[in-house]
């Protein structure tokens, strides 16, 4: 209930609907007599003190009639909605119990009917059922049914295709039980939400029918009928149409806003947005002079989100030209956000801060905007996990590559396109000129990832950030992409920051490994030492838990008990202490990342 009243729209919707409900219950009780009182002395009057909205052709007070007419409007709308919902849900559920052919017929009919405007269906039904409230209610019910049927079908199909329904079927759970235990509970919520908005729609449609003279007939009256009466006199006394029109509009708005807010609340339940900013991470150590040779130098990088969520906490990293550095960690360790932060791509409301962030010898914070864009656009290449999602499905490959050259290097379209073809050839895409004219979906997964790498080579990349670039690919394709990345690094002299959860891939490709845990670097070492010289207990456990082609099959695999703390609950001390065999009282204090051997640093009090 609280989320309803958090936004102005929610408050307005709730208030309006409450008002309508009260009016429907109390209106006729209070103003019923007044609305029916005939006064031959006050026929067809305009607005006055006695009759704020005027009177009708029998001298009855229009304001009173509007207040009374709400019950019929809302009541008929409710009946029409229920007819539509019941018929629609039955129609929508039918295909799941019918034989295949009959099911397809029902689905086809529903799909065809959904396309028809409701008013058309309502008029059709009203012609058959005859003029009057009954015909209009039936008609609008019939017009609502296809929408409900379609929604039920879509929802039921998505639930029926879910793995847990497959499992239930394999466990021999009966169809009826699958329907009542799995399908219905999981589709009830969106259906109920839809009811609110359908109710508003039905009310409007009924008002429309009555307004056209096709709905409620005298002596009964609803808002639509009152508007019909008032509309005839609109040129003489516009006020008489005002009351019913406002009532219809307010009711429509109320139900629609309420439905909106309910739907939003249902879809957002999982994410509690907080206001407090992340805790500041204490800065440690001397900043020192910038490393002029490094391609990338990051000192104390922190990424914080509102609500005390700090996924990256004081990370420092230096990458030299020609070097391939592997950044390894499990999901939630902050490795991907580190990549985004370096590329300046952390989404709002994330806040990035660093004591130093230098790319190609230039301090990104001090560079003028124009130069910074050019530097990042041409010197930094990024490759993401899913090559299909990384390419724009609507644009041809060649065009997507070429724009880097036209935007940042002032190349003409022809030159840029020629360079794009050249780059595609460079990453060994066969028939590059033909491929450049194709859309991404016409390429295989491995080919697409090559195209993304080629895109990074359009400028003069000094740093390639590859974020899980082979995770979505098959092993044989993975090997080709890894080989390509290595070649590209060798040829261009660029550095690569390779991010992966797979320590074996890192071990095969990289020169140096940086291990992240809960937003911090816990160890940094040359790749040769990864298997046997790792000093941090987390790195050692990670290596031990990875089965490879030589693992002793007679012994159980190592695994780490517990789980990595989420970015909102990282402790002040060593984040791994809870899961660590070596943990001692000292671990309540944060261990600094300190040199351990040559080119090897570790953040652990117990590392010897």
């Amino acid at each position: 209930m609280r989320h309803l009243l958090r936004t102005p729209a929610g408050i307005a919707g709730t208030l309006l609907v409450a008002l309508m409900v009260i009016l429907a219950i109390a209106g006729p009780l209070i103003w019923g007599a007044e609305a029916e009182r005939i006064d031959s002395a006050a026929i067809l009057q305009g607005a006055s003190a006695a009759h704020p909205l005027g009177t009708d052709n029998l001298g009855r007070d229009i304001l009173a009639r509007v207040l009374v007419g709400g019950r019929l409007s809302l009541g008929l709308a409710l009946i029409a909605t229920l007819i539509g919902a019941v018929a629609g849900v039955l129609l929508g559920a039918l295909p799941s119990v019918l034989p295949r052919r009959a099911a397809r017929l029902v689905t086809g009919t529903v799909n065809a009917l959904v396309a028809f405007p409701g008013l058309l269906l309502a008029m059709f039904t009203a012609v058959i059922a005859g003029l009057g409230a009954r015909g209009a209610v039936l008609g609008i019910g019939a017009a609502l049914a296809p929408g409900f049927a379609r929604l039920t079908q879509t929802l039921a199909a998505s639930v029926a295709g879910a793995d847990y329904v497959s499992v239930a079927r394999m466990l021999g759970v009966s169809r009826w039980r699958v329907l009542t235990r799995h399908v219905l509970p999981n589709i009830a919520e969106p259906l109920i939400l839809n009811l609110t908005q359908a109710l508003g729609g039905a009310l409007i449609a009924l008002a429309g029918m009555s307004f056209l003279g096709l709905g409620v007939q005298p002596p009964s009256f609803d808002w639509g009928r009152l508007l019909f009466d008032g509309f005839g006199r609109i040129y003489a006394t516009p006020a008489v149409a005002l009351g019913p029109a406002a009532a219809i509009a307010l009711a429509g708005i109320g139900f629609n806003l309420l439905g909106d807010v309910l739907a939003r609340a249902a879809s957002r339940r999982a994410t509690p947005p907080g206001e407090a900013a992340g805790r500041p991470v204490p800065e440690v150590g001397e900043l020192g002079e910038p490393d002029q040779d490094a391609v990338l130098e990051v000192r104390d990088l922190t990424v914080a989100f509102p609500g005390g969520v700090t996924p990256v906490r004081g990370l420092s990293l230096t990458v030299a030209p020609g070097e391939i550095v592997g950044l390894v960690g499990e999901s939630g360790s902050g490795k991907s956000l580190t990549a985004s932060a370096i590329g300046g791509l952390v989404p709002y409301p994330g806040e990035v801060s660093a004591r130093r962030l230098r790319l190609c010898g230039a301090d990104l914070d001090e560079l003028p905007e124009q130069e910074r864009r050019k530097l990042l656009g041409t010197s930094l290449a990024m490759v993401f996990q899913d090559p299909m999602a990384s390419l724009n499905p609507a644009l041809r490959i060649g065009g997507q590559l070429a724009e880097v050259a036209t935007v940042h290097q002032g190349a003409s379209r022809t030159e840029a396109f020629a360079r794009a073809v050249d780059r595609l050839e460079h990453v060994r895409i066969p028939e590059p000129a033909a491929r450049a004219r194709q859309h991404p979906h016409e390429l295989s997964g491995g080919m697409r990832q090559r195209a993304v790498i080629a895109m990074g080579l359009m400028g003069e990349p000094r740093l390639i950030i590859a974020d899980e670039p082979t995770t979505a690919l098959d092993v044989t394709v993975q090997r080709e992409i890894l080989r390509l990345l290595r070649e590209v690094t060798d040829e261009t002299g660029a550095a690569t920051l390779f991010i992966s959860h797979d320590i074996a891939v890192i071990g095969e490709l990289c020169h140096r490994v940086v291990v992240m845990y809960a937003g911090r670097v816990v160890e940094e070492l040359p790749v040769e030492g990864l298997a046997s010289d790792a000093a941090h207990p987390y790195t050692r456990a990670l290596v031990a838990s990875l089965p490879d082609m030589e693992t002793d099959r007679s012994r159980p695999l190592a695994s780490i008990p517990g789980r990595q703390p989420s970015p909102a609950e990282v402790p002040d001390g060593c984040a791994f202490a809870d899961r660590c065999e070596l943990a001692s009282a000292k671990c309540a204090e944060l261990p600094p990342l300190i040199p351990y051997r040559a080119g090897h640093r570790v953040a652990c009090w117990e590392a010897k």
Partner: protein
Amino acid sequence: MAESLRPSAAGPSAEGGRAARRTLAGRVRNGFVLRRVVRFVVSLAVLLVASFAMMHLIPGDPVRASLGPAAPVELVAARRAALGLDEPILSQLLSYVRNVLSGDFGTSFLSGEPVREIIASRLPNTLGLALIATVVALLVAVPLGMWAAIRTENGRNRGTEVTFTSATGAAVAVPEFLYSIALVTVFAIGLRWFPPAGKAGPVSYILPILSLSISPTAMIARISRVETLRELGSDYVRLARAKRLPAARLYFRHVLPNTLTATLTVGGLLLTALIAGSVLVEYVFAWPGLGLRIVESITQKDYPVAQGVILVYGAIVLVVNLLVDLLLGVLDPTSKLKET
């Protein structure tokens, strides 16, 4: 419009046309076009049967209901015979289909006018209104939705988001006939800027089109915003941002084409909804279209006219849906369309 918004990549602009033809040829080959046309024909047949059945589903005798209890028995019998209502139902259906296909929709009970002429003289007025309103709604709503999405991405500018969703939520909920009444009251009766009713020159189009397009504009703007937000969160936009493309290029060249599929689908539905919505607007503005006529025919039980007009409305819906399907099939290179 959509065609001109499709970028033609880096190649010469003739490439765009050639690729579209290639895709269309592909679609023809894999039976996509054929399936859609077959579905259209089947729906049309069902529609014909439904409109035929309408006359027979009316309880009692439609002729008696129309002429009233006072009409002489001979007149009713003569009318029944003229309509062929005494023949076997199947032969009635066959002759109905034959007549409709040859353009004969019967004659009005009341005025004796051929229904075909009523439709021919009034349909253009209805279609004109609906088409212009659809175009206006799309032209205003798509940029509006994109702008809102860009401003409110990832939950920034909460104020804009709240204002946008509340305003469009309220605008969607108010039906076109209330907009009509409000606009007439203020601009025609009060300020006397526009004629209150009838079709007389370009000025008389303004109020009906405004009333028809306000809530669809709000609805499409919401869809456009949601679609744009989804595209903005995708990896290719992240990559385009990593490439530091200028904002205009990012939004118009990368994002817009990908939101058009959904917008067009809705645009098609919208046109059909507007044709129906125009019934009420025509009524308010006494607009000489089909809508005004269908209301009269239903209230006066002039069944042949009601039957003919509903059939025409239904056929328009089917034609528009077919065209939208085919257009999407050609435009969408990733064939996201469900092949059902």
